[in-house]
Every structure is written in C-alpha cells, then in structure tokens.
C-alpha cells in the first residue's frame, strides 16, 4: 500500500454526478418544487462545487472486500458535512467547520491493559500492519438516518492478534483524544469527556469490525474521525469511536459514554434492531440520506449472517 500526496482527482469528481442529481430529483418531489413552479423559478442545473478542504492524501493499492455492499454510495459531501462528532460541536454541520484546522499528526495509540505487548504505537506503523481494504458499509445512526460509506482499513482483529491479549481479556475499550484546545466541543461538558466506547472481545475479533483510517479513496477527513477510528456496521453509529488514542484490554465490561449519559436510551451493545425502539423514537425505519421516503431498518443492519451468532440466547430487548 502506498500513500501519495493528493494531486489531480478530487473525491468530489469521483462521486458520480448522478448522485448529486438524485438530490435534485428528491427535491423536485418535495413541496418546494411546487412553490418554485408557482413562482416561475427554474431549478438550477449547476452542481454546487464542493468547498471542503479534502483530507487529501490518496491511499492506493486497496484490496476489495467481500463484505462490501453494492448499494449506492452516499455523496462525499454529505458524509463530510453531516456528522455527529460532539468533540467538534453538537450541530451536524459543526464538525466540518470546527475540525478544519485539527492536525491528526503526530499521533500515537496506547495499547495497554490485559495484553502481553503493551506499547505506544505510531499511527503510521498501525496503518502498515496489514493490507488496506476498501469496505463499503451501511452505517445506521441511532437517530434513524443512514449512509453508505466506502471506508478504508483492515479488520480490527489484525491489530489485536499482533499485541497478544492475555486469556483474561474479555473486553476492549477505546478512548478518543481529550484535548479541548484542539477539540473545541470539549470545552463544554455536553458529554463526559473523553469519549469512550467498548466491545466484547468476540465482537472486536469479528472480521466485520473495521479499524479505519480512510474513506472515499483517501485518508480520513478530520470530521470523520481522523486519523484512526473503528467502524462497526451492525451497531448504531455512536459505537464507532473516532480519533482513538488508547485501546485498553480488560476483564470488565467497559462503560461507554452515551450509556453513561442516558442508560435507558443507549445500551452497551447498541446493535441495530428495528424491534427495539429508542424511548423517544421508533427504530423501525430510517432515512437514507438523499432519499425521500424512509426505508425499513433491518436487523443487525442486514449484517446478521456475520454477527447474529454472537448474540445467540441473549435477550436483545434487555441488552439493547
């Protein structure tokens, strides 16, 4: 794998125009178009140019993955301008703005706890651990919207295998960077910083669990969790911790930030489940960004073949 400086093709050009045009069709369906017609205003056919500062560095030599979906990929602009990343503000549009000057280098990840090879790993040595794959995953937020993203990374198990967890290690805990100077959202106690997430060891070892450092052919943009995050497509988005600085192996079930914040609303498992409602809204349907009608949410976000067996015999209404 080779990481090259960006030069010629930008992601905005890779994203098929048809996707942007879909948005237009979508709007034409909405009442607004009617209002427009009444006012005699034509829908502008010019595609608005993207203004993002791109993460830039292209990642080449990507392997394809059998886990990839063939569903339509969500436009890059949406995935980079509609983010739940409270470290950079609580509005969806905040992270694109507030993370602009964030520098994800130098960066080390502390590996500790019940593991033989405790160490501080440099981000660039992590990226080189295994061949990078492109994995096009469905991503379902607990707020009932979803996207399809071509992530780049490799199975989290690749890293775990290399650091030799002891036999006592049953859980794994991820910690996001705590640095209010670089993460302005942390200057307010909206959540109990730093953000923490956790997995059971078998979940972490599941090949679907992705250690992720890129998307759309490039390194991760800051607002999507640069330089290192996890992606767990069968779980609600908040499980997929961003900007990870510590991976801790433990024998106790870790606390996860949203669970601490509102235990009756966000569980430890947080598996996508259309049959278990969030107390304040239904999880039966979701809105795929760019689509007008909602679509039904599928159990485990339709990754049941890979993950359902891990939860055999568990009451998923209790372990939400």
């Amino acid at each position, binding site marked *: 794998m080779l990481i090259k400086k960006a030069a010629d093709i930008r992601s905005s050009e890779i994203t098929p125009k048809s996707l942007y045009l879909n948005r237009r069709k979508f709007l034409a369906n*909405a009442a607004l178009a009617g209002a427009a017609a009444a006012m005699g205003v034509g829908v502008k056919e010019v595609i608005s140019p993207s203004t993002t500062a791109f993460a830039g560095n292209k990642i080449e030599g990507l392997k394809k993955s059998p886990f990839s979906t063939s569903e339509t990929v969500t436009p890059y602009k949406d995935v980079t301008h509609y983010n739940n990343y409270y470290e950079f503000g609580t509005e969806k549009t905040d992270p694109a703005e507030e993370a602009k000057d964030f520098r994800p280098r130098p960066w080390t990840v502390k590996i500790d706890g019940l593991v033989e090879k405790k160490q501080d790993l440099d981000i660039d040595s992590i990226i080189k651990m295994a061949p990078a794959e492109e994995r096009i995953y469905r991503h379902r937020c607990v707020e009932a919207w979803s996207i399809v993203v071509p992530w780049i990374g490799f199975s989290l198990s690749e890293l775990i295998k290399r650091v030799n967890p002891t036999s006592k290690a049953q859980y794994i805990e991820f910690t996001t960077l705590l640095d209010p100077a670089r993460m302005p959202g942390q200057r307010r106690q909206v959540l109990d910083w730093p953000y923490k997430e956790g997995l059971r060891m078998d979940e972490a070892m599941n090949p679907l669990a992705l250690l992720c450092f890129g998307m759309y052919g490039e390194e991760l943009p800051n607002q999507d969790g640069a330089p290192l995050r996890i992606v767990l497509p069968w779980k609600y988005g908040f499980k997929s911790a961003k900007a990870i600085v510590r991976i801790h192996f433990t024998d106790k079930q870790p606390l996860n930030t949203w669970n601490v914040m509102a235990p009756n609303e966000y569980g430890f498992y947080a598996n996508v489940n259309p049959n278990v409602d969030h107390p*304040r809204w239904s999880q039966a349907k979701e809105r795929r960004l760019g689509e007008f009608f*909602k679509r039904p949410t599928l159990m485990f976000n339709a990754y049941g073949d890979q993950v359902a067996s891990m939860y055999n015999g568990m009451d998923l209404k209790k372990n939400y």
Partner: protein
Amino acid sequence: MHRYFKPVVFLACLAPVGRLVWLGLHSGLGANPIEFITHSTGDWTLTFLLVTLSISPLRRLTRQYWLISFRRMLGLFAFFYGCLHLMTWVWLDKFFDVHEMLHDVAKRRFITAGMTAFALMIPLALTSTKWAIRKLGRRWQPLHRLIYFSAAAGVIHYIWLVKADLKKPLEYAVVLGILLSYRAVTWVIGRQARATRVREQEGRAFVR
C-alpha cells in the same frame, strides 16, 4: 405611519419560509433536508410565540402603545409556522401514517408536548378575528392566556427531544421564564395596588 409599516413586518415574517424555499432550490438544505425543514420551522414557531409574548411587556415598558396592533399578526405567524412544522412531521416524516402518528403522540412524551403546544394554539387562531373578540367580550382575554401554556409546552417539547446539548432549548426557556415572570410580577403589584386603593377608600369612608 404604522399602516405602511404593517405590510413590511408581514413580509419580514415570511422571510424564514422564503429562505427555506430559496435554500431548497439551491441545494442549501444540507445532507438531510427534511430534518433541516423540521428544525427550522420548529425554531420559528417558538420564536414567534416568544415575540408575541414580548409585545405586551415591551409596550408598557417603552410606552409604545401602537405595538399592540402587531400582536395578532405575530401570534398568527406562530400558528403558521406551527402548522408548517406539524405538516413536515405528518407528511415528510410519517407519510400520513395515522396509526404510527397516534402511537407516537401517546408514547413519545416530546411529541405529546409538541402536540399539546399546537392544539392550544388552535382556539387562539380561531378566535383572533374582530368578530370573535367582540363576541367573546370579557372571556376573550382569559382564553388567550392559553398562549402561556402553549409556549411552555413548546419549550418542554424542545427540551425533551434533544439528546445531550440543552443549550438552545434552555435559551428559549430563559426568555420564556423572563416573559412569564414579568406577568406574574405585574399581576402581584397590580393586586397590591388595588388592595391599597380599597383600603384607602375604606379609610376615607371611616373618617367621613
């Protein structure tokens, strides 16, 4: 002068919906246009409710008594944005699924609160005509105090729906708190003044 001023204010009140149409035509509603419209119309409903509630205090404090002639229009705009907000939910979120909507109203307390806020605005909008004001006479004002409860339910609706960041709903709550306490204070002062007046009269009667 105010006669020419009124159409200007009317158009200004339409600006938020005009902005939505304009943004919609220029791909400006972001990645989730329906959410954008829902939030925007909800924000403006609350804003217009609070602006309507601020007319009376403002009028008395600044002695600009003509302000009262704008109160009905502003209140009706609150209702207008409330209707848009509700329609966004009924149409674009629930797609007229009555069963699902009833389920939500009963089960999700933030929707119960929002529905209450909206329902309380309906009688106010219906009795806003000159004819209704005349017909209701002295009962009109007590009826229109329902706006206090509508605005409170609206703010509670907002507080109950946010995930973690209470900053924005609490801003509305603070403004509403100030506007309602102003009324409570003037009510108490008014009552005391009345009581004093009565006592003075009684005193005078005694002397006489």
